């Protein structure tokens, strides 16, 4: 089934585009004008988002470069150890909500050290694949419409990450068993 699924995902992207355009043609819509109109909106939207992205990514980079992140990872290690989470994936769990690039780098270093098919490699893959970068999504989605007051959004996002990562950890055990 997995091979079929990856094959399917290659078809989805061109399939959606061809399908929408063909339907537009059949319905006699001025599709080219419609496309240009819609695409124009992309510029203003991106400009609205950019300041939020700059602010967030600078703060995230500073937290990593200053050693603050490394310290957080260190002090939380005993807590994760208590939960039987291997030390190698702790940075991945803590970085995942902040930066997709950083958590992906942790995953790749695990791949390089242990291989993608190792117990740790699979765990890292599932953790990385089952949640998204909350801070980025907040900055982009709320930035685009000028929301300044997030209310409880950040908490919901972080709880969602924690839930996704916990689920990843449990499902990994169910599929691939305890560490060898």
């Amino acid at each position, binding site marked *: 089934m997995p091979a079929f699924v990856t094959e399917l995902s290659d078809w989805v992207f061109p399939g959606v585009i061809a399908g929408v355009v063909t339907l537009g043609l059949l319905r006699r819509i001025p599709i080219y004008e419609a496309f240009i109109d819609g695409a124009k909106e*992309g*510029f203003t939207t991106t400009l609205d988002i950019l300041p939020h992205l700059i602010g967030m990514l600078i703060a995230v980079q*500073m937290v990593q*470069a200053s050693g603050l992140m490394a310290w957080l990872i260190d002090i939380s290690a005993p807590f994760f150890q208590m939960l039987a989470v291997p030390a190698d994936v702790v940075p991945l769990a803590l970085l995942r909500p902040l930066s997709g690039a950083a958590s992906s780098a942790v995953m790749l270093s695990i791949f390089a050290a242990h291989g993608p098919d190792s117990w740790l490699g699979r765990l890292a*893959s599932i953790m990385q694949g089952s949640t998204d970068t909350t801070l980025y999504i907040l900055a982009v989605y709320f930035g685009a419409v000028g929301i300044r007051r997030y209310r409880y959004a950040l908490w919901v996002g972080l709880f969602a990450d924690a839930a996704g990562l916990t689920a990843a950890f449990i499902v990994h055990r169910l599929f691939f068993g305890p560490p060898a």
Partner: protein
Amino acid sequence: MIHRIWGGMIALSFIFAAFTGRMEALSSAVFDGAEQAVQVALMLLAFIAFWLGILRIAEAAGLLRALARALSPLVRLLFPDIPKGHPAEGYILSNMSANFFGLGNAATPLGIKAMKELQKLNDRPERASRPMITLLALNTASITLVPSTVIGYRAAYGSADPAEIIVPAIIASFAGTIVALFIDRLFQRRSRDDADRGG
């Protein structure tokens, strides 16, 4: 709240760098971050412009309305605050479908479009509304049929079966999404009084 978090991240980083002697790394981090943001925005511009163009055609062809009609019960369940038949329904569903089918670069533009529709329903435009936060929760938990980036990396590192993590990842993200929606509802209930008072 965002002010305190953002300010805290920057102030604490400065203090930490001062004690660990990483001031030089910290100052280059500022420009790295800004540069990264511009690169990400450029990539986003490409995706957003393209997908909003396609979306406009889909909208004119009546596809979004058809999608909303077919899956309306799902939207009603997840977003009780949205009036029935509102255009936000179609955008939210297209955002969810794009996430599900692994069209990550389409999901963001469609989600932004959904946010813009929700903003029209929002009586206080600087403040996140309840359906906006639910949409955010759905996107951070991100149920996806094919985590294509991870599969790509696994293949690049010589995995014998790069796609073997698909099923566990679907189960994990599905479980995560259910929990996220549940937590969202809990927060909604807690903040209802607060919303009525205008806080």
